[in-house]
């Protein structure tokens, strides 16, 4: 589904050059559940941002569904994102001024889907993640676990084939963390490709492949036995 070839990301300020990713080569197939691990500052989130096209690589090629998208414009990348990729963040990144339902609906607004159909889809995913009874609440009125469920719903409401989760359980207690991981596994079982950054080996065990990063490089890869 996606292939990174010698991908690098270097951050430059006036005096300092920081290599966040250094010649990374990764291939992820359709339907995989991949966990990315490593110590803080090793480049996990940078890698996820590049995969999600939220950031641009400094060097290397990025193939998405066999298309080389490294040179794509911001507008082209936005189109790919909205059709194929869903995001889940550690801090949920819900828009505080919108209700639960409106936050989820936001992902569909940019698809030009009619209002009635949007409502149907939103209701469906809210049921799926068990948040329907909180549809009209604002994010600030929800617990962390509930907020992350909303984020999951928002990530999947557009039927995206790829979910990128950046430490989705990082701000949750173990119970809620486990709930979220179960949701991801269910999605993966249904065919959604998931790439997840995590610090937790227990949560990494939900994945069928784990990539370890260190100082911006892939150091090991391990595949979980079926």
């Amino acid at each position: 589904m996606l292939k990174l070839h010698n991908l690098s990301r270097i951050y430059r300020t006036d005096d300092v050059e920081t290599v966040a990713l250094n010649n990374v080569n990764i291939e992820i197939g359709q339907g995989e559940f991949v966990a990315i691990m490593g110590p803080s500052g090793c480049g996990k989130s940078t890698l996820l941002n590049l995969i999600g096209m939220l950031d641009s690589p400094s060097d290397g090629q990025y193939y998405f569904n066999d298309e080389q998208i490294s040179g794509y414009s911001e507008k082209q990348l936005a189109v790919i994102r909205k059709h194929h990729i869903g995001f889940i963040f550690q801090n949920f990144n819900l828009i505080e001024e919108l209700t639960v339902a409106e936050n989820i609906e936001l992902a569909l607004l940019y698809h030009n889907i009619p209002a009635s159909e949007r409502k149907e889809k939103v209701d469906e995913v809210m049921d799926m993640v068990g948040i329907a009874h909180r549809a009209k609440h604002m994010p600030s009125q929800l617990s962390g676990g509930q907020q992350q469920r909303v984020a999951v719903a928002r990530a999947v409401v557009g039927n995206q084939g790829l979910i990128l989760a950046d430490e989705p359980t990082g701000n949750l207690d173990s119970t809620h963390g486990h709930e979220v991981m179960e949701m991801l596994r269910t999605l993966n079982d249904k065919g959604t490709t998931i790439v997840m950054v995590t610090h937790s080996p227990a949560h990494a065990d939900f994945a069928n492949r784990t990539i370890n990063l260190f100082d911006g490089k892939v150091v090991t890869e391990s595949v979980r036995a079926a």
Partner: protein
Amino acid sequence: MFKNYLITAWRNIIKNGMFSVINIAGLALGLMSCILIMLFVREETGFDKWLPDSERIVRMHSAYYVSGNPPFETVRSAGNMMEAIRDYASNEVEEGVRLIHFGATVRKQESALAEQITLVDGSFFNVFDLPFVHGSAQTSFTKPYDLIITEDIAIKYFGKTDVVGEIMTVCCVGPEPSPVPVTGVIKNLPDETHLELGMLAYVDPKIIENNAGLNTWTSVNVYTYFKMRVGTSIQQLQERITYWVNNESPLLDMYLKNVGELAPGAQISDNMKHKLMQLEDLHLKAKQDAGNMGDLTPMGDHNLIVTFTIVACLILLIACINFMNLSTARVSHRAREVAMRKVLGASRSQVVVQFLSEAIALVFISMILALILVELVLPLYNLALGRQLELALFTDLSLIASLLVIGLLIGLGAGIYPAMFLSRFLPADLLRSSKGGESSTASNLRTGLVVVQFATSIALVVCTAVIYGQTLYAQSVDVGYVSDDKLVLNVRAAGDNRDRLKHELLKLPEINSVVFSSEVPTQDNENNNTFTLIDGEHVNGENPSVLLNYHDIGYDFFEAYGVKPIAGRLFSLDFGSDMIQFEGRKEGDKGRANVILNQTAIDKYGFTSAQQAIGKTLDTNMANGHLMTIVGVVPDIYFRSIKFGVRATVYSMNPNRLRVASLSFNTSNVSQLMEKVEQVWKTNVPMQPINLQFLDQMMKAQYAEENIQVKMFSAFSMLAIVIACLGLYGLAAYTTERRTREIGIRKVMGANIKDIVALLVWQFSKPVLMANLIAWPVSVYLMLTWLESFSYRINSLWLLPVCFTVGLALLLLAWITVGGNAAHVAKANPIKALRRD
């Protein structure tokens, strides 16, 4: 999608209550100022455009220049000009008309009312196509003294408008009070016109032929209008008139005979200008040609309109800067939202559209508030301006369109920077940075905009202070006479009863004196004539012929006004021969009379002292030719507003021109005094309306326009400061919020409240100080230029302390604005601040 934008915008407005209030209130105040000024400007610029063919109608103004004398300029022209030019330039001129205004008395049952009658040529309605209610242009103006009145006049005298055939008794269209038939009724004229027409009478051509003041090429007593032919430009007609003046008119011969040789290379049109002005320009631009002889209705001022339009734009700029500053300052609070929208597939243009929509929505909320505010303050505004401005929001399409365009432009103008700024970041940048894209560039830009805001506010306040100071100065300058406790009574209608009236008035114990004159101060007319010094050695080789302004005064005039001679004597019955004599002169003989000159006239003749002038004789063609002996010299007094300065003046005693009485009184019960004076008037001058005014009120009225300007400037400058301070408060609140952690750390390190307040106050003092450096030179330059137009003006050195005081005041205001919030934050427990972050 749009609904989503609106929901987000609305919830953001609610969530950020204080910032929203500051944004909306600032913008509403700015828009209110702008709308108020716009209403004023729209009315001022709309004058006379409603008249049919207004673009083809022009008026001819006159300006005479004689070397060594101040220019004589007026919006009137000489009586013979219209026909001569109309006939000569028949290819360019379709029709011409003269208007001669004079005060008349109209009988109404047992009383008489003062009215203004306008004598016009029969061609009037060919130039001014005014709509008739009864009668018509063809049937109503066929013979001399046919009278056409407006609906208001018809209702005033007859209680109805269908009055064609009714008789009005008018004094004095003809030689005696005469019955005049009403031949037509026209619609009332709208307020937006310079024409003051209530009663129009068809002028008898014989009146013009037999009247020396009208049958003339040089005495300017009529208003002359031409309607140009279709396709003729004002420049073409102007050139034609100039050619006629130089080559065909009798003006050159008259000039050579009465004034002297032209300067080498000069043409008569250089000395006697006849300038055309488009009808639509008259209201705003006629003043520039008017000299001291302007229109009867209050005219506008083009420069004032330009100035207030600029002020409106500046206030709006200040309000827009608030909007931009507060929007970009709140970037960090919107960064996550923008990031998520982009993560979910929003393109940059969609983010831009979202933020522009928000800005425009906010502007229109402010616009609604502004319109409510305008409705609330409009009565007060009208009272201050003496206008009847209306906000015809539901009927005036052009107003609605203007407001919509203004709203959209402000929304786009103020919203474009925040929109572009927020949308340009990559989502990852926004998600990664806790500052949400806050950069030193944005911060510097905000500081720069605050500098612009405060520079504008300071400049506005400095200009207001200088205009206020100059207006006060002009009104406080010693005018050279005592103006207190004086009533001015027009005695023209008293005719032969004038002396009896005086006698009876003096019987009132409250009246100290009654003195006559041709004019009283503030009533100055441009009465000019050439006076030639004929005897004695010619002083210092100066030109003995001087164009002097002349006033006629009765005995005791100067005594009543507290003016003492600086040489010679005042007019006195003890000397018998002071008065101009018309009786008992042989044909061709010059009369003899005495005159008094003012100091400026003495200087013009080149006398080294006032005493040197005493006993000298002046030759003039006035009053059928007179030799006038200078018997006294008085100090310069301001017969007219100080803004016009003092002219060289001669005071003579022509009994035929003593039209006004000055009544000095000694009571504080002025209403009772006025009743008594009116009673005396009714007894001695029956069937004539009384015209009685207080001199000090007439003097104040001279500065009415300046006082209105000062009021407007003060009000709008204050608003500008309020808006700028609102913005500064918002920005300071934002900055302290953003620096909470830093403040916490500083407090942990030992900083006290004073240190923290000083830190924040200093941050905002810098832009205000910088604003002073920009505003001072700009406002000093502008005000020095403005002051140059006044003969007597405040010392320009005053500008420096004014600038300093205004700058300091604004700095203090900024400190108060920022300090309150800073102190509040500085008092907070540092641990809370650190924990929160």
